């Protein structure tokens, strides 16, 4: 049997809701497994690409240097990249920080000066700075601001039917045509 095309997925500055939406295709997931193999993805916990992929599904915007690397890695390994969900296509909720400086955001979350961080016990007023932690970018960027994206599936999350119909169309060489009810931004 010919090898099945591979699909990779990742969640960056998102909430994993769009991955939940992928799983929300219900019993069609069995058909999906007939159609494809999953490569790098939090679904099977494969951490690195094992080869060329037909489709990469991107959840979440690009908020730190690790996300930039992930996006470049996906562009390199995937024939087609699909931005899934509003965070990927327009930044989404994380992009609400785009009108403040990174310092303001971190102070709000961690600083005890002026009692800003409400839930953090942080008497030494330390902003997390371990070298292992990805560095935040100045803004949260829609993924198409960072690498070329081939298809966009909006929605918060992108509806399961939208993801399913687009994936099947791409894998069977049909045009991706979404009906009125499947293009929704909420």
């Amino acid at each position, binding site marked *: 049997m010919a090898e099945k095309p591979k699909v990779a997925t990742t969640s960056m500055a998102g909430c994993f809701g769009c991955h939940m939406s992928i799983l929300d295709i219900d019993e069609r997931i069995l058909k999906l497994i007939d159609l494809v193999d999953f490569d790098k993805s939090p679904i099977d916990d494969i951490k690195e690409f094992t080869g060329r992929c037909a489709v990469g599904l991107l959840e979440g915007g690009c908020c730190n240097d690790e996300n930039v690397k992930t996006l470049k890695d996906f562009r390199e390994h995937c024939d087609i990249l699909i931005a899934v969900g509003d965070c990927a*296509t327009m930044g989404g*909720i994380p992009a609400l920080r785009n009108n403040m400086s990174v310092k303001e955001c971190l102070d709000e979350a961690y600083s005890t000066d002026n009692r800003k961080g409400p839930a953090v016990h942080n008497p030494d007023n330390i902003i997390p700075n371990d070298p292992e932690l990805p560095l935040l970018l100045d803004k949260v960027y829609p993924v198409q601001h960072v690498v070329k994206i081939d298809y966009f599936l909006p929605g918060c999350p992108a509806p399961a039917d939208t993801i399913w119909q687009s994936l099947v169309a791409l894998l069977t060489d049909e045009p991706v045509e979404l009906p009125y*009810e499947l293009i929704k*931004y*909420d």
Partner: protein
Amino acid sequence: MSENVTLTIDGKDITGEKGQTIMDAALANDIYIPHLCHHPDLAPYGSCRVCTCLVNGRPQTACTFPISDGMEVENDTDTVNEMRKQIVEMLFVEGNHYCMFCEKSGNCELQALAYRFGVTTPRYPYQFPKREVDASHPNVWIDRDRCVLCARCIRASKDVDGKHAFDFAGRGPNRHISVDAADGIEHTPVDADDKAVQVCPVGSLMLKRQGYKIPIGQRKYDHEPIGTDIETGASKKQ
């Protein structure tokens, strides 16, 4: 007695009255011309350009352009709709339109236009402008992130409510809606039942405590594209 004028819209013969705009003549003939700043109860303004048609081959805004005999209007064609689609996409990147938590989602005319034109994401880079919220009023609030500068509220407040509580301030990318009080909308005579508050096409000038009232699936544009009521004549029967 009013004088009749005949013109064509997409090759179809239309009769209108002298002095009418293309928009009004089209509406009277159940023809939908996509629009955003236009509101049937308010004077034409012509700011959003969404109603752009080719009039005798030239782009013009239907909501401000008067009809004349023999005029040929191109409205529902690929070329014209593609121009409109680009305008709508520009409106999205020029503001901060967080549809996922906006109370107006599903009933928003900007979002509905994007749905009608099949926008999956704007082709232009997002600007992420900094815009201010004014929630000082007990019953009304302004979220300028969502404002499309249509001036409906300005026109309604001035011409219908007789208050002139809103106007634009700033120029170019800094243009924004401002209120007629130094320290917030609460110091203006704006009331919850003002026409100005009812006409905002987006979620910018909103009544408080009304959010998410209509469940998803029952909202205005959940199933039918904006303009369907005009195209089917349903808007007149109401």
